């Protein structure tokens, strides 16, 4: 068995009386796509907020790439290679598309206390950003304001920004959110091309996408993992069927 790149141990988060993450355990192996599914309110977004460092945990630990990152800030986690995308598109809407990506690239090139040279005229930065845009199919859209992109394009930019940070591990929070079935299929195809290059933890409602992409699936209900296994095991798990998938 390969070493787990991400290890979540007994993670807890509660909001007042509501336990959103209830002693949750997870191991994601290098190179796999691990999906987390669960009904609305199961605590999926809370979980991704905790793993990405945007939310402090009340208990438990998170180990990434051999380091304890439980108390690390979100920017620092990003620098270790653990990068998230957002369910609600979180791009810089009043920036050009290419500048969104260029900023993400700039972040990995050391500090940004550089006050004089124009960033938008930095050929190296712009070139690298353009390459990322080409890869995700937004090559022609670099000069458009990000807020003026169509929804599907914004979703792709959302992923592009995460990729531009040169991650090892992608935390994808519902990448297909709000997409029609065609766009969703395109995204699935695209994510498949990334398989092997990055380890991914995928949170998604679109079951077609999940079963098409995931190597392993963990089912989250009320902050607890009720089952974990291969897509087939999950599909045939009686508990999961009753809790979530429905018996049809």
């Amino acid at each position, binding site marked *: 068995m390969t070493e787990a790149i991400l290890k979540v141990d007994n993670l807890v988060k509660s909001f007042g009386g509501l336990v959103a993450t209830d002693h949750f355990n997870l191991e994601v192996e290098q190179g796999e796509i691990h999906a987390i599914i669960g009904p609305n309110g199961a605590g999926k977004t809370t979980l991704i907020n905790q793993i990405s460092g945007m939310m402090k945990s009340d208990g438990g630990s998170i180990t990434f790439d051999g380091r304890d990152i439980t108390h690390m*800030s*979100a*920017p620092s986690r*990003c*620098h270790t290679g653990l990068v998230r995308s*957002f369910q609600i598109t979180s791009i810089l809407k009043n920036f050009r598309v290419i500048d969104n990506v260029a900023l993400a690239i700039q972040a990995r090139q050391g500090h940004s206390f*550089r006050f*004089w040279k124009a*960033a938008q005229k930095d050929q190296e930065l712009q070139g690298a950003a353009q390459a990322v845009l080409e890869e995700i199919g937004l090559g022609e859209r670099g000069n458009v304001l990000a807020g003026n992109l169509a929804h599907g394009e914004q979703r792709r930019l959302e992923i592009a*920004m995460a990729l531009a940070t040169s991650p090892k591990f992608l935390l994808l929070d519902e990448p297909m959110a709000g997409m029609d079935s065609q766009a969703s299929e395109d995204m699935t195809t695209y994510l498949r091309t990334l398989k092997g290059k990055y380890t991914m933890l995928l949170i998604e409602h679109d079951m077609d996408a999940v079963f098409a992409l995931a190597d392993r699936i963990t089912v989250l209900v009320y902050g607890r993992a009720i089952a974990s296994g291969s897509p087939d095991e999950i599909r045939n798990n009686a508990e999961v069927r009753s809790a979530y998938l429905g018996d049809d």
Partner: protein
Amino acid sequence: MGKILSLMKTPRGIYNTILVLLCLSMPFLAPAIEQDFYRDVMLRAMIFAIATISLNLIMGYGGMISFGHAVYLGVGGYAVGILSYHGIESGWIQWSVGIIGSGLLALLFGAICLRTKGVYFIMITLAFAQMIYFLSVSIEKYGSDDGLNIDTRSNFGIEAFDLNDPMTMYYTAFVLLMACLYFSHRIVNSRFGMVIRGSMSNDDRMGSIGYPTYPYKLAAFVIAGMMAGLSGILSANFESFVSPDMMFWTTSGEMIFMAVLGGLGTIFGPLGGTMIFLILSEMLSNITEAWHLIFGPFLIVVVLFARGGVEGIIGKFEKRND
């Protein structure tokens, strides 16, 4: 040169050029129309514009709405006033103390204020500034609320550069204003500037792509504080007087208003806003005693209907021309 000429083809470029030419030519223009005092009005506007430009750096590009920015005017001004009171008239010392002092105070206030966001940030910057205001009121040695007269302007020990000469004073302010405009242009387009603007646009996302934005915002806050300090230094020199009023909260409020009026997040916006604000209030106050009755509604109309300020209005013509 070709680049500058091509800039002038757009309405905003023409407007910005007019602003600069007005500043440049007012010492000759004002006597020509027999309104000599407009030179002083313009000088005052140029000096205050430096402070407005600095506020725009953090507010227009970084989303940090400081309601206490006038405090750095006070620090710069009082550095000149207090040192001069104790017989230290060297411009090198006065100006260094003023600028470094403003920077240090901005570092202290910024370090605390930037832990908060939104309306809390506004309130806490206001509170800190008022604290210093009341400090200056309470010190009788330096004139408390009557202010402090300054006997002579900063002396740099260079014969050809004497701030007591009105033209030297005027063009010193002009050159420094141009330098601040150029500096802010460079800074907002640099890598540093992109991070600041990014944090205004979406701070959470900046964190998740690897930026701890706090140190960048703090650095911007300190730079803006120092620039406002410079404005205070110039103001103390020109007026030969400093008083707590220059850091009262209404001064901070006017500064915000000028930046909004001119156009937040544009390089020349604060300059235009400051000039329009000060010249218009000057003209109106010459017409009628109750000029606030006209000025107040004007400000409200601008805020309600001209989003993006004057730069925004002129920018609209630009798009139509395309």
